[in-house]
């Protein structure tokens, strides 16, 4: 036990001012259904979904709108009943607001559900059937990563996963939607966790490609236990979850220190299990998989009630919000409508952010839809923004001590400033998780994380450019070879023609002499 405790450690991180004002208020359920919903076909990591409906078609709530494509993808469903108005490009909820494909749904106000059947006892279902239903419900990681949950469950069956961690850290300032969810819907979340555990069980035949059918050997392949990790600034959520989990010995609820970025998977795994995820490895390779509490809740709704993922709880907060709250909104709701409902003072809004203030994306305007990744929408006043008056680096090394990935942000930034990206990559640029701790702590207001985001994108762009250069060389060679062939052919044709002409003339001359 003592050695277990000794291994628990946290590297880096900051304690940011929490500002979780709405965490004391219940989740608002009566958000007025918007007239139009703008539903992006890509709200997840992986391939965009392909529409299966036609413009003008009438759809019911929960009906499939777009089918998932390939192994890593997620389907999209109708958040309410109504008529499909358009399938076209509209601005995406992204810092660039560039267009992506969306389905526009005009709601009819009836909110009429599509009839679905549910299993009486889901624990009688095969594990495969559970993940199939989770995939069909379009469930993705609701912590913000939006990785399709079914892929993780399948990985859980195929790898030797012994611990399922449920991430209730919610370490970003302002955000408190998971906190409220745990306080109000603890029983549903715990049920979702049990269903996930069941979905990861190794049923006979699932691992026939592994030695001895994957059943015997040193490892017991069933995921044994789940740990719900909650930061200790949410005592109420902890109590509720603990009470809900009490009947189930395999589910443990634990408190973890409040420190950003505690919710980062490697940090969380390190703290909860004492295991370190080696660089370049996935957490499943060391027997751990992580899901968000919101995802567990969505699994409960999908399996117990047959409801696909249609809405989520969103934190609306920030100094410019007069009624900060956690509110359940259907996907596709425009942020501007959300702002009107929460009485946001648009004049005083200096920046709109989707997600948390540390890792979220700033949006150029509010005519963009909420999606599966939208854990929060912040409307910040000028006073809430960090001073951007950049000063020279004083080499205080604060950025080094807070970096959870153990990097040297100041050296990386210096290299990036003079475009020495290779040097920055050597210093570990690819391990940077863009958590923003370094920028947050820097007394000289150096936009460190912005440098790293720029450089990471640039490194990818260069790799693509290099790939293209190689392809170009191949194309040029292929063309030259073809030109050479054609020239060769022409030379041969020319020779043949000359020979034929000589032959003709010879024949003609012969005829003349004969005549």
């Amino acid at each position, binding site marked *: 036990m003592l050695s277990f405790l000794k291994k628990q450690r946290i590297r880096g991180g900051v304690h940011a001012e929490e500002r979780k004002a709405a965490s004391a208020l219940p989740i608002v359920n009566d958000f007025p259904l918007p007239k139009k919903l703008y539903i992006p076909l890509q709200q997840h990591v992986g391939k965009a979904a392909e529409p299966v409906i036609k413009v003008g078609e009438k759809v019911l709530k929960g009906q499939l709108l777009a089918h998932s494509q390939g192994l890593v993808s997620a389907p999209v469903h109708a958040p309410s009943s109504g008529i499909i108005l358009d399938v076209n490009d509209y601005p995406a909820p992204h810092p660039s607001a560039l267009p992506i494909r969306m389905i526009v749904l005009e709601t009819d106000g009836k909110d009429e559900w599509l009839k679905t059947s549910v299993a009486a006892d889901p624990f009688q279902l095969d594990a495969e059937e559970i993940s199939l239903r989770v995939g069909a419900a379009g469930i993705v990681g609701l912590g913000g990563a939006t990785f399709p949950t079914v892929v993780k469950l399948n990985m859980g069956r195929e790898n030797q996963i012994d611990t399922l961690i449920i991430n209730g850290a919610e370490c970003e300032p302002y955000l408190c939607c998971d906190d409220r969810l745990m306080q109000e819907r603890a029983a549903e979340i715990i049920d979702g966790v049990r269903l996930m555990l069941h979905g990861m069980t190794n049923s006979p035949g699932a691992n026939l490609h592994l030695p001895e059918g994957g059943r015997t050997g040193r490892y017991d392949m069933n995921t044994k236990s789940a740990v719900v990790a909650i930061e200790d600034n949410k005592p109420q959520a902890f109590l509720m979850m603990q009470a809900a989990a009490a009947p189930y010995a395999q589910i443990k609820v634990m408190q973890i220190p409040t420190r950003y970025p505690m919710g980062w998977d490697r940090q969380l795994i390190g703290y909860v299990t004492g295991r370190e995820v080696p660089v370049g490895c996935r957490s499943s390779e060391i027997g751990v998989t992580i899901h968000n509490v919101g995802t567990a809740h969505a699994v409960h709704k999908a399996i117990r009630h047959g409801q696909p993922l249609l809405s989520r709880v969103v934190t609306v907060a920030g100094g410019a919000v007069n009624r900060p709250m956690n509110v359940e909104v259907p996907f596709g709701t425009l942020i501007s409508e959300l702002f009107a409902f929460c009485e946001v003072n648009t004049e005083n809004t200096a920046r709109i952010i989707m997600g948390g203030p540390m890792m979220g994306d700033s949006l150029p305007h509010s005519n963009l839809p909420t999606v599966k990744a939208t854990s929060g929408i912040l409307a*910040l006043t000028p006073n809430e923004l960090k001073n951007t008056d*950049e000063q020279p680096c004083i080499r205080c090394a604060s950025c080094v001590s807070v970096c959870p990935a153990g990097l040297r942000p100041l050296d990386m930034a210096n290299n990036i400033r003079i475009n020495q990206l290779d040097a920055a990559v050597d210093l570990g640029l690819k391990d940077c998780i863009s958590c923003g701790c370094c920028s947050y702590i820097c007394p000289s207001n150096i*936009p460190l994380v912005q440098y790293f985001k720029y450089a990471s994108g640039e490194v990818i762009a260069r790799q693509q450019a290099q790939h293209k250069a190689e392809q170009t060389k191949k194309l040029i060679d292929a063309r030259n070879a073809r030109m050479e062939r054609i020239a060769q052919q022409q030379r041969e044709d020319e020779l043949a023609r000359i020979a034929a002409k000589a032959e003709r003339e010879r024949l003609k001359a012969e005829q003349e002499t004969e005549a």
Partner: protein
Amino acid sequence: MYVLSAIVSLTLLGLFLGLLLGVAAKYLKVESSPVVDELEALLPGSQCGQCGFPGCRPAAEALAEGNAPATMCPPGGSALAEQIAALLGIDLDLSEVKEPELLVARVSEDTCTGCTRCFKVCPTDAIVGAPKQIHAVVADACIACKKCVEVCPTECLQMHPVEVTLRNWRWAKPQPVPAQSLGSGSNALC
């Protein structure tokens, strides 16, 4: 006396050996140095001449002799400059290098007569078409050499900046910002 003769003999020896080396360098010169080959392989190979040399091979030779800076190739941008510097083992300040603007050729369908001239000059076979048919450029294969633009009789082939989509959008490099200005980057608290 001994000291003097030692100095004289060693100096003469040094001079003689130096001369020998000089002569050897002149007569035993390697014709095509492997460095030039390697440099040429790095360069884009489109022989565009923007560097001021008549083509990529002469440019590579100038680089190897130190007559051109590592940053001389505009289409290559700083990525290429970094590779060249690494190959030649030199230090380099890239803060002045401009990244090339990405262009792609596009056919305006209204005015294309289907004369196939562009099709014949494109070095990467990026243009598809047949006589009397509207031609089109495969954007992924176009290397922006502009050869097709020069030969097109109706000016319907033009270079356009590569369209920015969510797939190729990237964060901009942070610029030093004056106090109180609110850029559009994220990370409000940091």
